[in-house]
């Protein structure tokens, strides 16, 4: 199918893009890689009057270092994130989760910021962003503001972004030297997560010193598994303590039931996959 008609603008800078959004009014939509938006437009699930394409906004693309954080531009493609040396060194969890997103063609077009702004509960990048305590830099008509990951994801497909705002970049605190793993469970290639677990662990001589764990598709928004994190800290990085900690994974979650899994099965998956993710991240 073919999208309904719309006006198209491709501004060259962030300020220009914000102005274009304001001028176009409520029915404007931002276009990044289009890998979620174009299917939606083709199905006519949305019919924006104006599309503001960010492809020419050069300063929203790429990864840079900024003190104790790395900053990932919203327009950086999944393909670029997978190969970026700063991401690999300081936020390996994001690289590993991105490796599992979609397929090579989609990763060539889809962007880091687009995947976060889209806020699909089954999307693989929100949970790593929450686990690593990322901060979202948002530009709007009254300037810039920064929103922590825990407040950015509001509901199914709903974020803190207002219709006249842009996600410009994401600051990710460095987790240099931490072990990381993203464990994704799905049925077929190129499919979304039924459940996913993002785990990042700092081990100190066989003991788990710090742990960050977040879950994909266990609620409307990514869930930080604090029960697991607390149970891991100070424990030896062995199978027994990891299994005991993983038993807390489903606490406080409210997964939906769908054709892939009911609520009980999702909770079971969360525990099993958390065990695997933490074990891999801790290298045990």
């Amino acid at each position: 199918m073919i999208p309904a008609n719309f006006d198209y603008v491709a501004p060259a800078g962030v300020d220009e893009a914000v102005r274009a959004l304001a001028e176009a009014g409520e029915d404007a939509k931002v276009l990044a890689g289009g890998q979620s938006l174009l299917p939606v437009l083709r199905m006519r699930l949305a019919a924006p009057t104006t599309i503001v394409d960010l492809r020419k906004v050069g300063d929203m693309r790429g990864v840079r270092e900024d003190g104790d954080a790395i900053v990932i531009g919203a327009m950086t493609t999944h393909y670029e994130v997978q190969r970026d040396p700063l991401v690999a060194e300081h936020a390996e969890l994001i690289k590993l989760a991105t490796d599992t997103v979609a397929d090579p063609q989609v990763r060539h077009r889809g962007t880091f910021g687009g995947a976060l702004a889209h806020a699909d509960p089954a999307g693989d990048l929100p949970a790593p962003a929450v686990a690593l305590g990322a901060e979202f830099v948002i530009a709007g008509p009254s300037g810039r503001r920064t929103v922590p990951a825990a407040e950015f994801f509001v509901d199914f497909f709903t974020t803190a972004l207002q219709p006249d705002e842009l996600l410009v970049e994401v600051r990710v605190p460095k987790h240099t030297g931490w072990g990381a793993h993203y464990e994704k469970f799905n049925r077929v290639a190129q499919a979304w997560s039924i459940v996913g677990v993002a785990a990042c662990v700092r081990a100190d001589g066989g003991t788990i010193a710090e742990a960050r764990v977040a879950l994909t598709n266990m609620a409307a928004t990514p869930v930080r598994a604090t029960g697991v994190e607390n149970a891991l800290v100070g424990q030896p990085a062995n199978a027994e303590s990891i299994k005991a900690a993983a038993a807390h994974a489903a606490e406080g979650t409210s997964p939906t039931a769908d054709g892939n899994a009911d609520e009980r099965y999702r909770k079971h998956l969360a525990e099993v996959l958390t065990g695997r993710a933490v074990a891999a991240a801790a290298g045990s």
Partner: protein
Amino acid sequence: MRITVTVDGTEYSDDVEPRMLLVQYLRERLGKTGTVIGCDTSNCGACTVHLDGHSIKSCSVLAVQADGSEVTTIEGLARDGTLHPVQQAFHDNHALQCGFCTPGMIMQSVDLLADNPDPDEKAVREGLEGNLCRCTGYQNIVKAVRDAAHHMRPGAGPEAERVDERTPSHAAGGE
């Protein structure tokens, strides 16, 4: 809106509606029907072409997004009547039955081999995960891609020089 796109080495300049998909532009405006449409969900990969050296699904890109870019379709692979080594390998290994997925499979395989010139079976299957085939069970497709890799390896003859047409911006991640 006016766009200028280079497709299979020829520059075209056309007025298009912003909502026109790249695949429609290729098929209906330029008559390049070698690129096919297999689904309505961005899943099947039959419409795969290269946009500035990267494989993409042309049903999920607007023609206006390709303005100023270079597109290579299945119709642009053969040179002077000689099949591209990946096309030849699909032929030699009988890597198709109905042939509908073949243009996309070949375009994605060329992309995969540019990234990884010597993929093992797992790497081929993962590299082609965005392309669906309903006939072959994939066995002969995997065989063909590995056969092509063999023929395209350094020192395998002049064919090898035609493989990687990516621009330097590929490595730098620019567009």
